[in-house]
């Protein structure tokens, strides 16, 4: 654990709280998972993150129909919950605490690249098992979208998709993305991608949650169906 007496301890651990211990012996059948389709699209004026709202048990049962799978973790950044709900929730709380601590200490927010690096370090260092979030945000350098994989891989892209509906949603965005597109156009494209995944992926569905991130902040809205979202 990070030791405040010795500030040079592990660079890969949170300063507040602990990384979860080993996952061994967890009852996989009863772990609530998101299944999920989460989409992040970067435009010149901001970032759109869209997710579905379904949580499932053992891949057979819809255990929740109104999950909010995107959370603000920084004044101008948000992250998606993908994989084990418990792991993802604690991951988000940890990152939010670290981002707040950094900002209050240094009087400036973490850059999105630093935030994604920190997320990758935590994912790699501690078994937040099977999480695969998207980090999206805006900083001095502009808009950024990163995917973070369970082994700590951190990759930036113009747009990225994670979760069980990845194949379907990516197909919807592929060829339609344009770096010049407006935030509104990116929003529509993200909704279409989540909708397509909801139609074909059993782990995704029950509406859409949208996060609109600009240099002003993060706005998150939930919609029961895809038409009203548009």
């Amino acid at each position, binding site marked *: 654990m990070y030791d405040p007496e010795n500030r*040079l301890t592990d*660079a890969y651990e949170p300063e507040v709280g602990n990384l979860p211990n080993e996952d061994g012996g967890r009852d996989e059948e009863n772990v609530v998972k998101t299944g999920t389709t989460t989409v992040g699209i970067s435009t010149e004026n901001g970032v759109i993150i869209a997710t579905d709202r379904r949580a499932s048990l053992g891949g057979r049962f819809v255990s929740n129909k109104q999950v909010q799978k995107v959370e603000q973790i920084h004044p101008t950044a948000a992250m998606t919950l993908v994989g084990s709900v418990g792991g993802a929730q604690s991951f988000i709380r940890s990152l939010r605490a670290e981002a707040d601590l950094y900002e209050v200490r*240094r009087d400036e927010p973490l850059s999105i690249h630093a935030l994604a*690096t*920190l997320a990758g370090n935590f994912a790699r260092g501690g078994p937040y098992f099977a999480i695969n979030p998207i980090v999206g945000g805006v900083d001095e350098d502009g808009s950024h979208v990163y995917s973070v994989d369970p082994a700590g891989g951190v990759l930036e892209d113009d747009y990225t998709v994670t979760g069980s509906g990845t194949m379907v949603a990516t197909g919807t965005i592929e060829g339609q993305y344009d770096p010049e597109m407006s935030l509104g156009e990116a929003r529509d494209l993200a909704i279409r991608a989540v909708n397509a995944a909801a139609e074909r992926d059993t782990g995704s569905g029950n509406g859409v949650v949208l996060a609109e991130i600009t240099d002003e902040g993060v706005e998150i809205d939930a919609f029961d169906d895809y038409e009203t979202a548009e």
Partner: protein
Amino acid sequence: MQGNEQQAYDRGITIFSPDGRLYQVEYAREAVKRGTASVGVRTEDGVVIAADRHARSPLIERDSIEKIHEIDSHVGVASAGHVADARQLIDVARRQAQVNRLRYDEPASVESLTKEITDYIQQYTQTGGARPFGVALLVAGIEDGEPRLFETDPSGTPYEWQAVAIGGSREDIQTFLEDEYAEEMDLEAGIELALRALASVNEDGLDATGVDIATIDVESEQFEKLAEDDIAERLEEFELGGEN
């Protein structure tokens, strides 16, 4: 001679005197004054740190007298006081600079590095069985494209400066800097001011082997030490050299 009453309060570092003073910390400040001076000058184009490192014998290898240290490619430190104590703090700063890169994949800011050092120093003013650091540091570097210059003292307080001196003859050099400093200097003018400031308290003049200078340029963001020849050239140009 001091009376027994006062002595009691300078035995333990963690003991306040009745009038609220920590004598050990004040003694540590005296240790800084016994060291040769270091000077820092912040200009629009970068930061200059310079240190007086004159040798006590011509037989010593000059390079073994280290008063200016690279912390990371964009940050340097000059020290005054106990060199051995300085080395400990410099290693803290070097490791912390790398921790920042590992953790955030970004260079550490000069301010946060300074505060890591001063927080470390402060622990030694509050922990029993240890003594405070008998050294002051100048932490100079580039942060978000801006030049920054900080001082750390034995109490663990960070200060930011436009131009500052630490170590022996500090007051005199500081007065010199206050008279001569101008905000719109370029880096070369900063080097000149730093050398003149060190020379202002050296009656015999400076000699290139007895001065250490480093710059951190805003453009390159790189810590660079001046070669002895370059220092000698400037000393001659500014007529600051000794008779050798």
